[in-house]
């Protein structure tokens, strides 16, 4: 077990170090628009994947929660529109994330009584409620969004120099990744995975399933809150449109494309999403009105559909299957998310993937 943990840290460290060199290799535009966006969008997707992979709850409500954090932050600092309370940005970040966690706990308490599809739809309803709330309460959302939001001094002006924001996002992503991997090895995390797999048994063993699920939702909300704040740093503004249903679907797409049960998938999916978004305009051939530079959504929808049909484990799942096959392993074995509990995830083409059954990866 110590071996694995060390490998995890080494692995993470290598990846972070490589990414840290990014500003020296790539253009400013690439660092700013592709990489930084991939990082914070990845954090948002990570909140979804944490819940789906480790707690067995696929939630569409993460965007709503990140909206709460984003709006609380934007309103608490000096900005154009909104409440313009003009607190210190550092304090505002803390309060924003705290607000998100609070909202997350409330949502979690209400939603934890439902499962599977019902849970998905209730969380979707949450995101929509948050969206409508902010659209209507214009004191909080400004009349065209909250613009020119003041950012913490550490970040400076991303318009002029995107590098500090990139490093902050990188640090946040790395911390969250490491944090979640640590959390799932704690007793709490293990209980959560137990609940994901066999809720009835866990209940019989005396665990308070509802409480654990609610707390898990709270953790997911914390991660989503960080994503929300990072998104405001990135855009320097926020408006209800930033947290509408399209955005919720986008985060879901990112998570599924990356790999719904693999934490790394969050950032991989976000990167792929960003690359397609930006470069599809130049390289998509025009096929009548069906395909063309403006048809980004069709492209991403097709990628999403293909992934769901062929590989429930997302891109990371595909990679692992290829790797396993090339090593000549006879029957592909389960690739674990975590050392201690193996998660069911079969190559999709041959058998229905229990991974995507309602309630979680194992039936």
């Amino acid at each position: 077990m110590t071996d694995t943990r060390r490998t995890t840290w080494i692995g993470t460290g290598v990846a972070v170090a490589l990414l840290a060199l990014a500003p020296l290799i790539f253009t400013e535009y690439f660092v700013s628009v592709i990489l930084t966006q991939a990082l914070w969008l990845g954090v948002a997707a990570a909140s979804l994947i944490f819940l789906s992979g480790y707690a067995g709850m696929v939630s569409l409500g993460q965007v709503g929660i990140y909206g709460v954090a984003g709006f609380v932050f934007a309103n608490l600092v000096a900005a154009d529109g909104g409440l313009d309370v003009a607190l210190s940005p550092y304090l505002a970040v803390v309060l924003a994330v705290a607000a998100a966690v609070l909202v997350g706990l409330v949502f979690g308490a209400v939603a934890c009584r439902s499962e599977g599809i019902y849970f998905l739809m209730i969380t979707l309803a949450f995101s929509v409620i948050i969206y409508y709330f902010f659209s209507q309460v214009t004191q909080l959302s400004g009349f065209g969004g909250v613009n020119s939001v003041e950012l913490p001094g550490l970040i400076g002006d991303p318009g002029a120099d995107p590098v500090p924001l990139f490093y902050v996002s990188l640090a946040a992503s790395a911390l969250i990744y490491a944090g979640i991997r640590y959390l799932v090895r704690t007793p709490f995390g293990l209980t959560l995975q137990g609940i994901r797999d066999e809720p009835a048994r866990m209940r019989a063993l005396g665990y308070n399933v509802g409480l654990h699920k609610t707390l898990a939702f709270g953790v997911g909300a914390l991660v989503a809150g960080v994503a929300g704040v990072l998104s405001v740093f990135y855009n320097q503004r926020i408006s209800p449109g930033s947290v509408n249903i399209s955005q919720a679907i986008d985060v879901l797409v990112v998570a599924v494309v990356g790999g719904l049960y693999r934490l790394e998938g969050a950032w991989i999916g976000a990167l792929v999403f960003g690359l397609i978004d930006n470069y599809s305009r130049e390289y998509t051939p025009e096929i009548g009105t069906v395909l063309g530079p403006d048809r980004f959504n069709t492209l991403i929808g097709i990628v999403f559909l293909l992934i769901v049909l062929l590989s429930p484990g997302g891109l990371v799942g595909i990679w692992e299957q290829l790797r396993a096959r090339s090593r000549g392993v006879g029957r592909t074995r389960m690739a674990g998310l975590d050392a201690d509990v193996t998660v069911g995830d079969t190559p999709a083409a041959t058998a229905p993937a229990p991974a995507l059954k309602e309630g979680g990866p194992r039936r």
Partner: protein
Amino acid sequence: MEKEKGSRRFWVLLVVLMLALGAVVAGCGGDDEEQSSGGGSGQDTSQEATGPIRLAVLSDCEGAFAPFFEADNAGVNVPFINRGAKAAGAKPSDGLTGAKAGGRDIEVVGYGCSDDTADKAIEETRRLMEQEKADIMVGPLSGDEGIAVANYAKDHPEKTFINGTSGAQDATLKVNTPNFFRFHGDGAQWAAGLGDYAYNELGWRTAAIIGDDYSFPYTSLAGFVAEFCAIGGKVTKRIWPALGEKDYSSFISQIPRDVDGLMVGIGGTGLVSFIKQYRQQRGDIDPQKIIGNNFWPDPVILKEIGSQINGAYTAQPTAPDATTPEATEYVANIEKAYGKEVAGLAPSVFLYNYYNGTEALIKALDQVKGDISGGQKALQAALAKTSVQGAYGNITLDDTRNGVADNFVAKIVRKGGAYTAETVSRIPTVEQTFAGFFTPETPAPDRSNPKCEKGETPPWVGKAEEVTPGS
């Protein structure tokens, strides 16, 4: 355990693979547009002196104002075509060849497409200004978009932004950034003359207003409220259906039956639905009791519901039936470039404002001889002093770089088989503050602002110059 180490390595390799892929893509794709990496954000000096000036255009191709997309683009293209450029295709969004201004080539890097929302507008702005590296932008189109782009402009002082036709008051009055220019009035200015008309000619003493729930209708109806209330009228009810809402039935139910009149500020394609549903619930439109803002005389709207609003009064910054040499030449130029259909839209605020903004830009570029170095300061200084002789009147800028121009009260009539707006009177030199009613400190127009208070009468009330049909 070994499998675990293996899987870790897998994803590390995967991440590296992805990065490598991204690097290759970025490297190949960004060739023509890459600036020196890791350096500052300034322009490449050699390009400033002799290379083409990169122009971006932003308007809406989705949402309530989608039908005007090509009209907007025509408004930008035709001033260049008048000076020798050639249209690259039948549609304005196909682009231009040989466009020049200030002695330098003008390259249009993209005709951006937003959907009436600030988010999409900012996304497109960033793509055009940062990925396509445009120097100057003409746009955006709608109210909320204008405020967002003006704020973006504030954060990017080294680029210049000429408003397309966004009419939200705040974009200039509150944001007030030296690199954002609006060569036309805001929405409130486009309603000038109606308050006067309603009070003095139609005899209204109380009124209700209804408009979409976002910044442009707030501003547009604020113009009516400011004028109507200043001279003694009372606005007793304000109704704001959500933008994009197409089911107006509940909102129509809220219109009080005991007011003297209703001022309608619903825009674009929503207006068509609104009028139809209004007629279902309240019967035919009585021109003595209902007036509309600048969306009513729009050719596309009149085509759909002209017969239902026949005889009603409205106001707009253009006079479609003007026969002055400037007006006829304006329409003729557009027809020459893109044909009768687009020319039919020439009097719409969309085409007219994009056109005048581009005219001003070309004038200023000529004046500074195409110099956009030094953070475009010279160009911005020149623009602040530029005036445009528009087809329907002269346009100058005030000290927040907002347009001061004439406005027109018009009546919807049927002429020669089609419905059109016949100009009734010209309201001279309308300016943004409405004689101090609006200042940078007054609350921005919204659901309940401006308050209906009697106050200083705007200078143009009672000075409407009557216009005989066809002059």
